C-alpha cells in the first residue's frame, strides 16, 4: 500500500526582511516578502528521502495561510512533493496555535495520512509546539525533534537529541514526526522541478470544507491575546578597543567594569 506522507509547511515573513506587526497586533504578512519557512524545508527533504526509500509513496504538502502562501507550496512542490493542499479563508486571520492545529488536523484527516512530517518550529512564531499538539489532536504517536529519521515496515525510527540526553525513538504508523535543522541539508529545486511544479495539483479548502466554525479560529477565536508589541530601541554603539599591546588588559577592565568577571 502506498505510504501517504503529509508535510505541514508555513509561509513566513523573510527573516532578513524588516518583520513587524500590523495594527491589530498580528504578524504583518503583507508588507514583508514571505517564503517557505527554512525549518520546513528540512521536513520536505526528509519526506522526499523517506518516499525514495519506500516502494510507493505520495507526498502532500499542506499549508494554512493567505493567498501568498501558495508560494510556499510551489517551493515544496518544486523540491519534489506530489500535490498540495491550501487551506485559505478570510476568517483564519489572526488564528493562534490552537486554531491552526485544529485546522491542520482536520485537513490532514480529510487528506488521509500514514505519516505527518513538520519542521521543528516556524521561523516567525518559533513556538515549536505545533507537532505535539497535532499528535494530541490526531491521537497518534508523536516522534518529534528528530535529527535522524527512517521508516521501515510501518515503523518510524529516529534519534532525538535532547538537552540532557540523546534518545532513540520508535513508533508505529500513523505518527507525527518533526525534524530539526540537523536532519540533513534540504535540496535546491532543479529547473525541471520548478517547471514540473507548475502542473502539480493544488487543492484549495476553506473552513466550510473542513467543518470548522468561524468562531473557533481567527483573532476572536484565539485562546491567547496580545496586548502590546513594542519595537526594541536602537542599540547604542559599542566601544571598540584598539589593541596596541594592551588590548587584553583593556578587555579585562571592560569585563570587570561590566561585572562580567
Amino acid at each position, binding site marked *: 500500500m502506498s505510504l501517504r506522507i503529509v508535510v505541514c509547511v508555513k509561509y513566513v515573513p*523573510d*527573516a532578513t526582511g*524588516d518583520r513587524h506587526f500590523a495594527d491589530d497586533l498580528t504578524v504583518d504578512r503583507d508588507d514583508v*516578502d514571505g*517564503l517557505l519557512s527554512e*525549518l520546513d524545508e528540512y521536513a520536505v527533504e526528509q519526506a522526499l528521502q523517506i518516499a525514495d526509500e519506500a516502494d510507493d509513496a505520495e507526498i502532500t504538502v499542506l499549508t494554512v495561510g493567505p493567498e501568498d502562501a501558495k508560494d510556499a507550496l510551489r*517551493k515544496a512542490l518544486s523540491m519534489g512533493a506530489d500535490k498540495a493542499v491550501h487551506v485559505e479563508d478570510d476568517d483564519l486571520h489572526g488564528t493562534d*496555535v*490552537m486554531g491552526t492545529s485544529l485546522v491542520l488536523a482536520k485537513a490532514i484527516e480529510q487528506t488521509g495520512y500514514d505519516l505527518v512530517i513538520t519542521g*521543528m*518550529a*516556524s*521561523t*516567525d512564531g*518559533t*513556538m*515549536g*509546539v505545533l*507537532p*505535539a*499538539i497535532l*499528535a*494530541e*489532536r490526531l*491521537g497518534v*504517536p*508523536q*516522534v*518529534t*525533534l528528530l535529527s535522524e529519521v527512517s521508516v521501515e515496515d510501518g515503523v518510524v525510527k529516529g534519534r532525538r537529541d*535532547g*538537552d*540532557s*540526553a*540523546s*534518545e*532513540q*525513538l*520508535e*513508533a508505529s504508523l500513523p505518527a507525527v514526526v518533526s525534524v*530539526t535543522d540537523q536532519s540533513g541539508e534540504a535540496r535546491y529545486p532543479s529547473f525541471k522541478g520548478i517547471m514540473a511544479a507548475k502542473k502539480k495539483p493544488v487543492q484549495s479548502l476553506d473552513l466550510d470544507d473542513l467543518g470548522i466554525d468561524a468562531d473557533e479560529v481567527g483573532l476572536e477565536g484565539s*485562546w*491567547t*491575546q*496580545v*496586548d502590546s*508589541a*513594542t*519595537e*526594541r530601541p536602537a*542599540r*547604542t554603539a*559599542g566601544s*571598540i578597543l584598539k*589593541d596596541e*599591546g594592551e*588590548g*587584553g588588559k583593556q578587555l579585562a577592565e571592560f569585563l570587570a567594569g*561590566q561585572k*562580567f568577571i
Partner: protein
Amino acid sequence: MAEVLVYVDHVDGAVRKPTLELLTLARRIGEPVAVALGNGAEATAEVLAEHGAVKVLTADAPEFADYLVVPKVDALQAAYEAVSAGGSLAAVLVPSSAEAKEIAARLAVRIGSGIITDAVDLEAGQEGPVATQAVFAASYTTKSRVSKGTPVITVKPNSAPVEAAPAAGAVEALTVSFGEKSTGTKVVSRTPRESTGRPELTEAAIVVSGGRGVNGAENFHVIEELADSLGAPSALARRRRRRLVPALQPGRPDRQVGLPAAVHRLRHLRRDPAPGRHADLEDDRRRQQGRRGPDLRPRRLRRGRRPLHGRPAADRRGQGPQGLTCASLAAPQSAGAVW
C-alpha cells in the same frame, strides 16, 4: 491565595536552574505547587521548598523514562485536576525546554487552555498573568495573556533571578493513570549528553561565541579559554548552511548559535562575524542587504542570504596580540556590553 502549578525539570533529582527561576515568577502570581516526575522526583523536594514550593507533588513510574512525553502529560494533567479541584488555580508554569514545552502544549489542548511559549518575564495582571515575550529575533517585545482556560505559560531560562524563599514543600504522592495513548512512542535507548563541565548553553547568562574570525579550528581554543575564565559555555557562530561546522569540529564548541532562532533559547544573542565588527545576525544581514542594493532576483527565487561577492578582508581575520581574537558576549542584563 491562588495556586500556581510549576512543572519541575530535573535530572535524577537534581533540579535544573530554570525551574528555580520559575518558582520566583510563580510566587508573583500565587503559591507555587511543584510537580516532579520520574526517577529522583522526591529528592527534588528539599531544594524546591527552599525556593518557595508550598507543596511538591511527585510520581515515579517506568513509563516516564520508557515512553516519550505523553506519560508526563498524563501526570501533569492529574496534578492539574487535583489542584484545580481544590480551589483556584491561577496558572501552569513550565520551563521552556524542548520536552517541557511539548508537555505544556499537550496539556493545554486537553484542558482547553491557551498557551504562551518562551516568556521572558511574567507578572500578575487584572485578567490573569501577563507574559512578556521577545519576538522576531528580539527586535520586538510583546505582552500577552491567555484569554481562555487556565493560562499555560512556558518561560525561558534566565528570565528571573533564583531567590531563596523557604516554604513548607510538603511532599505528596500523585496518583497517575496512564492513558492508552501514553505508550505510543517508545524510547529504545538513551545516551546522556557528554558534559563539558561548562553551563548548558541554553541556561547560561554569558556565552562566548566565536566564528571564522578565529581563522580555523586549531585556534578555537582561545574562545574556550575565555569561556572558561568567565565560567561560560563556548559556542560557534554559525553561518547559514553550516559551512564552518566541519572545519571547526576539532575545537568542540558546546553548541552552535545563530540561525535559526528556534534552536537556541537565549534571550539575547550577539555574534561577531569578524573582528572589529559587532552585530547580531539580523542587523548584520540587513546591513549587508542594504550595502548591496535591492535584490533583483524573481521573488520566488529570493531566499536567505545572497552569494557574497566579496569575502571579508583576510587582514581582519585572526588578529590580536595577547592571543585574543574575536569573541562576543551575550549578556541578558546589560545592553551595550558588546564590542
